[in-house]
């Protein structure tokens, strides 16, 4: 199934893309998707105390099961304000 993965801020720099489509097996979790990105791009959590995940613009955990056309965002702890 097609999943769009979006990377933000320092994670984008580590991934080398800001948005890319991945073809992943059915019932892939957000955590599986992170490991898949890491296989292709190397360690995407370097220097981070935690990697945050969101599916379709809502925060989620690594065990969240993805569905076709989901947008999974990977990003570092926020630092706005």
């Amino acid at each position: 199934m097609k999943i769009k993965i979006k990377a933000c801020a320092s994670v984008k720099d580590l991934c080398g893309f800001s948005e890319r489509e991945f073809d992943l097996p059915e019932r892939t979790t957000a955590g599986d998707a992170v490991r898949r990105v890491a296989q292709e791009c190397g360690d995407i959590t370097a220097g981070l105390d935690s990697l945050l995940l969101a599916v379709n613009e809502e925060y989620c955990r690594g065990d969240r099961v993805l569905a076709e056309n989901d947008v999974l965002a990977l990003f570092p702890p926020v630092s706005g304000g």
Partner: protein
Amino acid sequence: MKTIRLQNDPIECAAALAATGTVEDGAVLSFTGTPRRDSAKRPVEHLFYEAYEGMALKEMDKIADEALAAWPITDCLIIHRTGRVDPGQASILIVVSARHRDEGFAALRFIIDTVKKTVPIWKKEVYIDGSEWVSDRV
């Protein structure tokens, strides 16, 4: 009432403050965040804010709704800059209007604390000779 905005342009704090609150209210409180020039080990030339825009707006909207539900405030404004922000310029403006100051203080505090925890916006410090994402420093 609530106003939620992400913008590249400088925040017109004065106009935003004047537009918030009604004749029925007793207290209008504002918080303006400005990036500090010397927060890092080396002098910051300017800041750059990246937002995951759709989600950032949703999260800001949720925070405003939570504040409006938790305290009897009548008006709530949250504006965050994106892109380049110079030291001394506001990166964020929050205004709440309430009948009583206790409620206004509590709501304002909740909003800024929560924005800094949940809204997907990241700050990069830009130096004369490089740059660094602020959240990388753990």
